[in-house]
């Protein structure tokens, strides 16, 4: 197993891929290796890319990656798509837009299903960021699922969050709502060759102008046509500027602390859930309580207290 650790630190793609699988499957071998690699993490700049489905996140990531490659940076990409709540299966299709990167040894792409997580990320994503970071990637990009209004977990993991919007999705009032429109470090209006671009830019700009969250920095609004590589270099410059800003204002440490907090909570949550739902000895109790709740003999709160009572003893 130490062999796997050293191969990962040397950037070996097969070993990276294998450890990702182990963490995704909650394999008992994974935590030991994750512990080994942790001291080698923290160097990569983590960029979160979120936005509605079809807004061009994958294409944008492909173009950003090509720009970073020109600058000699190694890039890891985590592309998340939804897992079916019915079958547990998933169709992970983000690679289709990243074909140009397929043969570049300096790029590692991994597709992930959400596997039950609701915030736009996958449960193992914290581990995967650490793995790619330890393997020597300078940039790690996390593409969320296509989001609605409230899936904002990406800010827990990213140093820089890009919110991608496209022209023609509702009026000004949409930009004022809480949730997704609050989390951007940079707004990207993609597909800027479409009709309605100027209005969308004006609405987002307006939102920035009336918000007063950070006195030192106004959230910039960029326009791109990712498919034609328009506006990409300027966007990369802005992302690089943002990380310098974070470091200058000490917000960088805060963001990293937030990520570790989210990771810690996720590890504990997973372990606790396993303790309750994977343990065979509680299976009968849970089944009995579900029957009793259905017959109105017990209420869900009392049932939850009985189950928790058993594991906390």
């Amino acid at each position, binding site marked *: 197993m130490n062999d796997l650790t050293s191969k990962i630190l040397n950037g070996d*793609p*097969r070993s*990276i*891929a*294998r450890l*990702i*699988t182990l963490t*995704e*499957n*909650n*394999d*008992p071998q994974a935590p030991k290796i994750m512990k080994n690699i942790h001291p080698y993490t923290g160097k990569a700049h983590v960029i979160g890319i979120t936005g509605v489905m079809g807004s061009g996140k994958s294409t944008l990531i492909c173009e950003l990656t090509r720009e970073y490659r020109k600058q000699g940076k190694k890039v890891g990409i985590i592309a998340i798509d939804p*897992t*079916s709540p019915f*079958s*547990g*299966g*998933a*169709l*992970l*299709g983000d*690679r*289709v837009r990243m*074909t140009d990167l*397929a*043969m570049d040894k300096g790029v*590692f*792409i*991994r*597709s992930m*299903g959400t*596997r039950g997580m609701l915030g736009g990320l996958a449960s193992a994503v914290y581990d995967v960021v650490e793995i790619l970071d330890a393997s020597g990637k300078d940039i790690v990009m996390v593409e969320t699922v296509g989001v609605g209004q409230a899936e904002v977990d990406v800010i827990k993991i990213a140093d820089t969050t890009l919110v991608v919007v496209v022209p023609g999705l509702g009026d000004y009032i949409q930009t004022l709502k809480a949730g997704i429109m609050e989390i951007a470090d940079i707004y990207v209006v993609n597909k800027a060759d479409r009709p309605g671009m100027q209005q969308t830019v004006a609405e987002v700009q307006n939102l920035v102008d009336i918000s007063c969250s950070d006195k030192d920095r106004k959230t910039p609004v960029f326009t791109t046509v990712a498919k034609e590589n328009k506006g990409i270099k300027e966007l990369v410059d802005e992302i690089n500027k943002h990380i310098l800003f974070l470091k200058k204002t000490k917000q960088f440490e805060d963001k990293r602390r937030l990520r570790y907090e989210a990771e810690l909570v996720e590890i504990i949550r997973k372990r606790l859930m396993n303790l309750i739902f994977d343990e065979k000895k509680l299976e009968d109790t849970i089944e009995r309580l579900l029957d009793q709740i259905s017959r109105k003999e017990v209420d869900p709160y009392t049932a939850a207290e009985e189950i928790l009572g058993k594991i906390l003893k």
Partner: protein
Amino acid sequence: MERKIRVLVAKPGLDGHDRGAKIVARALRDAGMEVIYTGLHQTAEMIVEAAIQEDVDVLGLSLLSGAHMTLFVDVTRLLKKKGMNDVLVIGGGIIPKEDVPKLKKEGICGVFGPGTPCEEIVDFIKKNVKK
């Protein structure tokens, strides 16, 4: 521990017909698998590289142009060269009967032509997946 079967569905070569590949991808998704679809016009090198990064259990190749004896075999040979011996490779498309034994000899373990019920492919994968 929740193991999920991961499948890469790929179209090597130059034919642009991916309806079959998409139907199979959808059926595997509905069977609870994680399906990575890579799109059209892939080279053997691109497919194998994606299979490595995605750490798939199964590689499904679809080809309708008649170049399967060249391109499917390119993929399995490259997989072998990279030491990826634990990936189950299956293929589909317009493949004459007489080619099937030759493909099997080259490591394409299952070959599924037009009209194959999707459940047959799902069952084959579940029975033969190597990990």
